[in-house]
């Protein structure tokens, strides 16, 4: 629905009337995005039901009886069911007064604050630390940036992301003021067009994951060891919570009521994944920040989207091929036929978290990050038909990998033969596989994080203020 509304906005800006079509349940999202794009007058015609699962007869009947009459009415100025909800021109639209950044919007005791914020839809369902001016101002002791600085504008609500509201939401999430430079770098990433936050409300229900690499990991006492991806350590947890809270409050991604997030099921926020620099140094491996193209002395945040996580990948034995084979098999199992999305859309960046003992074993056998990536690219494969069939399930349109290859949109390796059972690579490029060392140092376990399509990881240097204490 967001893509449909974005195209409708481009069409309306060209002074050509547009009509949008969506399925039941997507109207609130369409209307919310329409408001945010300034086109809430655009009629949205609703297909009643689930397009993917209606049989052909039902689909055609619904088109004839419901959709087509609404489209005709909408094209000729009549309302498509629900009336268009906006006056005819921008000048006629009253702007609802909203608070200034430092206006006090409510005063009360702790329980009152929680109730008020919950009623306003400004919490993630958990209690928040009351965002007082004093608390937010303390964050600015750790940056040189001005509270008024606009970092970007975040869809679907198209609100300004400012240093001030980063601090306010950081307070609410339970972050310490010392974390503020990290929060600012995170929001720079969220506002980067390559992150595509406009897709964050898609039905896939992907979740951002922040990887932190550099000296601040130990300085701010992030957990890099046992239970690294569990809630429990303030730095990892509160910053992970901040990301989702900020996407709710400033980007405007909300589950019902009034939802703009269409995650069909989704999952909860990720805590920050910090890299274990000591092990990386010991092995002589490049740290994640260097893999991302940054100097080793900097701390960087990197954000990517995650749609699912592998089973725990346990490996053992003296033979390196046993370790590699098991990592590859369980990584591949986690990806499954979803691999189609990386091939079709590009920009697909799975991430592998190696516990220190697995990393040591690989290094001892002469397998570094590049060798591991090459192994995974070469050996993790799936039958072509599974990917093509799953594309049909997800998008309700056919996929023929051979056609993509003929059009130059996929590597020839995907059409070496016309056998539907032929095995094709599940990773698009070896260099797109991220590798981070973290986790329980006493257990040989890895985990793979499977990305959403189109989105590359976005990274920023964390800049600490010169006035910091």
């Amino acid at each position, binding site marked *: 629905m967001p893509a449909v509304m974005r195209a409708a906005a481009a069409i309306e800006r*060209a002074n050509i009337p547009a009509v949008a079509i969506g399925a039941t349940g997507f109207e609130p999202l369409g209307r919310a995005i329409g408001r945010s794009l300034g086109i809430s007058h655009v009629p949205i015609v609703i297909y009643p039901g689930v397009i993917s699962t209606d049989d052909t007869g039902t689909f055609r009947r619904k088109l004839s009886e419901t959709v087509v009459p609404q489209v005709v009415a909408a094209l000729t100025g009549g309302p498509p069911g629900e009336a268009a909800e906006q006056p005819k021109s921008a000048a006629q639209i009253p702007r609802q007064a909203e608070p200034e950044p430092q206006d006090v919007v409510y005063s009360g005791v702790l329980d009152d604050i929680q109730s008020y914020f919950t009623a306003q839809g400004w919490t993630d369902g958990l209690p928040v630390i009351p965002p007082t001016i004093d608390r937010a101002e303390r964050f600015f002791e750790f940056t040189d940036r001005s509270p008024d600085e606009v970092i970007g504008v975040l869809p679907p609500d198209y609100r300004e992301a400012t240093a001030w509201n980063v601090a306010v939401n950081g307070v609410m999430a339970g972050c310490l003021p010392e974390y503020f430079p990290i929060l600012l770098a995170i929001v720079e990433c969220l506002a980067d067009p390559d992150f595509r936050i406009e897709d964050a409300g898609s039905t896939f229900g992907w979740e951002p994951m922040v990887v932190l690499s550099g000296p601040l990991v130990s300085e701010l006492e992030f957990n890099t060891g046992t239970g690294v991806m569990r809630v429990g350590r303030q730095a990892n947890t509160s910053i992970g919570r901040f990301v989702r809270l900020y996407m709710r409050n400033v980007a405007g991604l909300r589950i019902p009521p009034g939802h703009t997030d269409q995650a069909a099921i989704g999952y909860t926020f990720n805590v920050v994944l910090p890299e274990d620099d000591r092990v990386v140094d010991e092995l002589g491996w490049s740290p994640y920040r260097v893999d991302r193209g940054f100097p080793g002395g900097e701390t960087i945040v990197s954000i990517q989207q995650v749609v699912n996580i592998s089973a725990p990948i346990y490996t053992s034995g003296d033979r390196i091929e046993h370790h590699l084979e098991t990592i590859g098999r369980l990584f591949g199992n986690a990806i499954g036929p979803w691999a189609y999305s990386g091939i079709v859309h590009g920009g697909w960046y799975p991430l592998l978290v190696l516990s220190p003992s697995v990393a040591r074993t690989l290094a001892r056998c002469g397998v570094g990050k590049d060798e591991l990536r090459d192994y995974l690219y070469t050996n993790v494969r799936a039958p072509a038909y599974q990917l093509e069939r799953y594309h049909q399930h997800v998008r309700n349109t056919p996929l023929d990998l051979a056609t993509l290859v003929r059009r130059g949109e996929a590597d020839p390796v995907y059409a070496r033969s016309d056998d539907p059972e032929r095995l094709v690579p599940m990773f698009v490029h070896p260099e797109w596989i991220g590798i981070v060392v973290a986790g329980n140092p006493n257990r040989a376990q890895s985990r793979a994080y499977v990305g959403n399509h189109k989105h590359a990881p976005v990274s920023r240097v964390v800049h600490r203020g010169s006035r910091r204490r």
Partner: protein
Amino acid sequence: MKRLDEEPREPRYEVVWPLGKSAVEIVDESQRAEDLDGQTVAFVWDYLFRGPEMFEAIKQELQERCPGARFVDYDVFGNIHGSDAEEKANVAALPARLREHRVDSAVVAVGA
């Protein structure tokens, strides 16, 4: 010494707004035709969810009601929800392509 009937005093907090200023720019509504006869209708697709069947059904119905209507198919405009680069390029090119084909109104689908 604290009296038993004394109410404990909870601190009060004065709190600020966690949102940001709206950057929405309102687009004026385009003029819709009263009658589609002689009009050109474009179909714009995100390459999802049975769009061609849907567009064909709409086209047939409109042709019966308005024999003078003309149509421009979705393939002229490309995928508005493909790869990142493809999507951005095709959406940016929409106004020019619509004008090139003298389109009067557009149906955009399928949101689901």
